[in-house]
């Protein structure tokens, strides 16, 4: 199954990679991302990077989450993002890891 993509903010590229990665802490509206990299710098877990393999409609390499399991949903990325690309979810208690 895929992550529900209720809005166009959703990063449809983030596919679950198996049961253990089913939980996705971030939805990234990659179409709006300008690749400024501020989130990459502030991420305490260093799990964000600009995706040099992709160019979005604005012409930028958008950010992507490299390790969903390592993300702590601290939302610093969302706090500093000038383009409001992030929706952040808390890890469910006792559920998916």
């Amino acid at each position, binding site marked *: 199954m895929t*992550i529900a993509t209720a809005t166009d903010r959703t990063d449809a590229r983030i596919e679950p990679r198996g049961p253990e990665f089913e939980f996705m802490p971030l939805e990234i509206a990659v179409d709006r991302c300008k690749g400024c990299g501020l989130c990459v710098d502030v991420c305490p877990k260093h799990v964000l990077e600009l995706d040099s393999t992709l160019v979005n409609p604005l012409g930028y390499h958008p950010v992507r989450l490299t390790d969903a399991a390592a993300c702590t949903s601290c939302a610093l990325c969302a706090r500093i993002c000038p383009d*409001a690309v992030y929706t952040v979810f808390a890890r469910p208690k006792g559920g998916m890891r």
Partner: protein
Amino acid sequence: MTSVAETRRIVYRPPQLLADHATHYCPGCGHGIVHRLIAELLEEMDLADRTIGVASVGCSVFAYDYLAVDFVESPHGRAPAVATGVRRARPDAFVFTYQGDGDLAAIGTAEIVHAAARGENISVIFVNNGIYGMTGGQMAPTTLLGQRTTSSPGGREASLMGYPIPIAEMLAILPGVAYAARGTIADPGWIGKTKAMLRRSFEVQIAGAGLSIVEILSTCPVGWGMTPAESMAHVTRDVVGTYPPGVIVDRLKAAADAAAVAATDAPPAPVAGSAGGS
């Protein structure tokens, strides 16, 4: 089957008042952060339905394309005058101006000073990045000494170009200013503090206490010739030296504190019938 999305608890979502299309701002520009803080607060404080924003001239003129509230566009520098008209004609509205440093600190000094002197009950959001971004990175009144811009190519020199203007401190001495603070969007911690300042500014307006101004130190990576990350570092390293962040005055709080002190220190209540003069 229950979808994953439905089971997930949202820690943060972009405010719905914020348009979900891309802004015209350059990558890493601080305007986007400030826009988002405003949208978050308008939602959290349930103000959107009665908000009338006043857009100014500069990069942020298109604020009305991104914030889904009523907006009027003002001539360059005149936003506090326009906001005065809005506020007076619509006393029940929540009114804020969104101005850059060229707009507020150069061409619009008369308007902001007198709106402040009148104590107009508006929130002034003053985004200071020390440069004229829209027109190509020229020197602004807030440009730091020594800073190179396209119109101060050798760096700003006080003997020729004067000194940076500390707007928030200047305005804070006016009794019509209920709240003056300076924040910055240069790191996540300060973004939170700046949001708190904006919230206080909005509260001050709701209390009818007078003009409030939040000066927000922001960035212009393109105009400064820096990467977004370097720009943020420049703010926290250099800009705050000229423009120290913090709350400069909160007369609403000061008045409340004084009242509280007076209440605790007050002599026994006078006998009924002599309650005049308060």
